[in-house]
């Protein structure tokens, strides 16, 4: 038996929708955000529309049931039911969309806000555009010393950072569960691998209070580390972060 085109289209849409839910929420155990899912479905619907209507015969077949529903005298009962149910559904949908809820409002943080050109740390002005890790050069020049520096950074990390960012640098430290926003996961390809070392220096030295307004809400618990760590210690920790995760800092020079 051939499934009518309209039903086909609807089935495809429902199938894709359930597919997303199944794959992300059940199989991968990582819920698909409703905002993303809504847009995904919008474009899937556009695609389905395109495939079903690009040729004349198919289009006619697709809209035939709708046309019949609206025009044919024999379908009066169904027509009346549909004409009542659809507006009610639309109204209900709108109502539940708009009704105020007790949930906290959706928050959007810009995780990597644009850095300022220059910052003030350790009582001096530092130009972030030119700032470089003073120890990075030892990676090639003096691997022994570099190893030592990384080890130093590891020590600093374990003593200060791992409580939140985790001993695997995955953002799952003992205290992480109590924090919102949650501590950064340095293993993620979207974090330190995307950034220059100067950016990390800025974020570590000035902490949550040093975030610009666009990164609000301003509730990051990251301490202002320049009050606790020396400049050298921060640079060593940065070496450690990249070394442990196996990532490379963003740079424009070819150092491969």
């Amino acid at each position: 038996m051939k499934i009518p085109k309209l039903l086909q289209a609807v089935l495809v849409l429902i199938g894709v929708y359930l597919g997303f839910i199944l794959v992300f929420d059940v199989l991968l155990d990582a819920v698909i955000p409703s905002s993303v899912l809504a847009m995904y479905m919008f474009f899937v619907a556009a695609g389905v529309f395109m495939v079903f209507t690009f040729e004349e015969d198919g289009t006619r077949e697709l809209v035939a049931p709708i046309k019949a529903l609206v025009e044919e005298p024999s379908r009066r009962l169904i027509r009346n039911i549909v004409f009542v149910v659809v507006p009610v559904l639309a109204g209900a949908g709108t109502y539940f969309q708009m009704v105020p809820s007790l949930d906290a409002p959706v928050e959007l943080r810009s995780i990597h806000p644009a850095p300022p050109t220059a910052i003030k740390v350790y009582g001096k002005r530092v130009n972030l555009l030119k700032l470089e890790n003073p120890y990075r050069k030892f990676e090639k020049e003096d691997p022994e010393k570099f190893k030592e520096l990384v080890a130093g950074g590891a020590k600093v990390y374990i003593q200060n950072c791992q409580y939140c960012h985790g001993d695997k640098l995955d953002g799952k430290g003992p205290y992480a569960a109590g924090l919102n926003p949650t501590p950064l996961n340095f293993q993620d390809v979207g974090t330190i691998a995307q950034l220059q070392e100067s950016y990390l220096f800025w974020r570590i030295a000035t902490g949550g209070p040093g975030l610009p307004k666009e990164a609000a809400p301003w509730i990051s618990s990251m301490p202002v580390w320049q009050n606790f760590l020396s400049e050298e210690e921060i640079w060593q920790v940065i070496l450690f972060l990249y070394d442990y995760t196996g990532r490379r800092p963003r740079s424009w020079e070819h150092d491969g």
Partner: protein
Amino acid sequence: MRGNGYLVPFVAALVVSGALFLLMDMAVMNMQGLSLFFEP
């Protein structure tokens, strides 16, 4: 459709174009001072 007239040229083209693309990748990456396979 997948008779001999199809399969042989398909496999041949697959191998040849695959090799050519790989060569091109290497050449372009080398031109930028990098190697196709990452050396940290």
